């Protein structure tokens, strides 16, 4: 039920990372989806595509790892593991 709010927060973090990297375009993000996060990779990508539209993260590849450990301390969470940013001036065409 909170997918949109989670993705919005994640996008805000990704954009902050890109900004810190002098505004380069985001090429790829790696996320970890907890066993109880209620996300599948497809479901996550769908939300990501919507939320990133019109930002430097639009079109970024999403690498999603699903964990199946129900007892993991972050099992109900979504973790942004890393963001790959193109160096400024290297805009990646769609």
């Amino acid at each position, binding site marked *: 039920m909170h997918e949109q709010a989670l993705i*919005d*927060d994640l996008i805000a973090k990704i954009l902050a990372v890109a900004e810190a990297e002098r505004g*380069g375009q985001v090429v*790829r993000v790696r996320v970890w989806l907890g066993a109880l996060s209620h996300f599948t990779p497809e479901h996550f990508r769908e939300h990501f595509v919507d939320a990133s539209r019109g930002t430097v993260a639009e079109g970024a590849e999403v690498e999603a790892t699903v964990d199946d450990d129900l007892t993991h301390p972050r099992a109900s969470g979504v*973790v942004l*593991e890393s*963001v*790959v*940013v193109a160096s400024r001036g*290297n805009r990646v065409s769609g």
Partner: protein
Amino acid sequence: MSEPETREIRTDYLARVEGEGAMLIRLRGDELEEVQFKIFEPPRFFEALLRGRQYTEAPDITARICGICPIAYIASACNAMEAVCGVDLPDELRALRRLIYCGEWIESHVLHTAMLHAPDFLGYDGAVELARDRRDLVELALRLKKAGNTLMRVIGGREVHPINLRVGGFYRAPTVSELQALVPELEWARDAAVELTRWVAGFEFPDYEQDYAFVGLRQPGEYAIERGRIVSSTGLDIDVSEYEHHFTETHVERSNALHSTLEGVGPYLVGPLARYALSSELLSPLAREVAAEVGLGPVCRNPFRSIVVRAVETVYAADEALRLIAAYERPAEPWVDVVPRAGTGHGCTEAPRGICWHRYEIDDEGVILDAKIVPPTSQNQKVIEEDLVGVVRQSLHLPEDELAHRCEQTIRNYDPCISCATHFLKLEIERM
């Protein structure tokens, strides 16, 4: 074309629920023209997915609506199904339902009072930041919350979404010794809740009052929790089955939560302030004594002081739990048979945030044909908007970030579902 040069930045960032609400303030010159409070949390279609399911499944399915107040949904659904099937719960099972509900009031009220709302008054972002300076208070609150959770676990089988409740009672009734074992911690919790009340009563409260129409349950002889008639400060006094003759839900484009109004009155308030105004004389002597000590009169119309009323209700819930345990005798049977019959049943109980109303239509086989659920937060949404207009009008001189903080604090007065996030509100100010 060569691959662009890239750089990978490790983040290990755990996403948080943020921004489920938004607020638009429209100004014409220095005059406030409009305030709109929007809730984005998407519809969850519980009413639709209940259709076709068995009447026995409604309590467990609706419990999933909220992880903080599942008992409210379970109890309202059970009441409704028992009503349609013509079953009156025996007193000892009714008392056990009330007892587990006390556990929910304690854990929910303490979570909101100490962890979510108190930091607003003290200038902290949240409980973690508060703990750096007042570790003692945060630890007291955590232990107090745990006392409520333990009560839920011992009776309900687990703390979140308990699984031991059913239409007609419980799958298993706890033994006397299982409940007696909780007494020392609940006695500590009662004292701790008094301390919590004194602490929050010392906060500085904005000077703001609203002439609310209060709506809640009222039950002769007891502070209403798990049953009662629906009454209001405007003179309404009806059976829960008459709710839809007097209350209307409407959809507004800007919000996914429906707006509720009381016929002939308009917006109304449910929750601690309403319960307290309608039934404060039915609180236990200790809770009444604490309320008087911290300066609460018979009615409190300042929504920022709802934190104090919530703490007083925590005292009451611990006190009432101890009374119920002292009187407890293990029922001969943990449930009564509830044989389905075609008809419509209604149930309403006092969730920590206010009345939680259910209606179900079932057939002779017990299949649910239709369902309607009215949670407390959506009932309060229209009155939250009215409060925001008043508060914003008083606070237009504040810088934008302080104004946003004051608006979040105002919305948290109502303990709405969306306020778990630290910064849940996106504030937009439109100047014309």
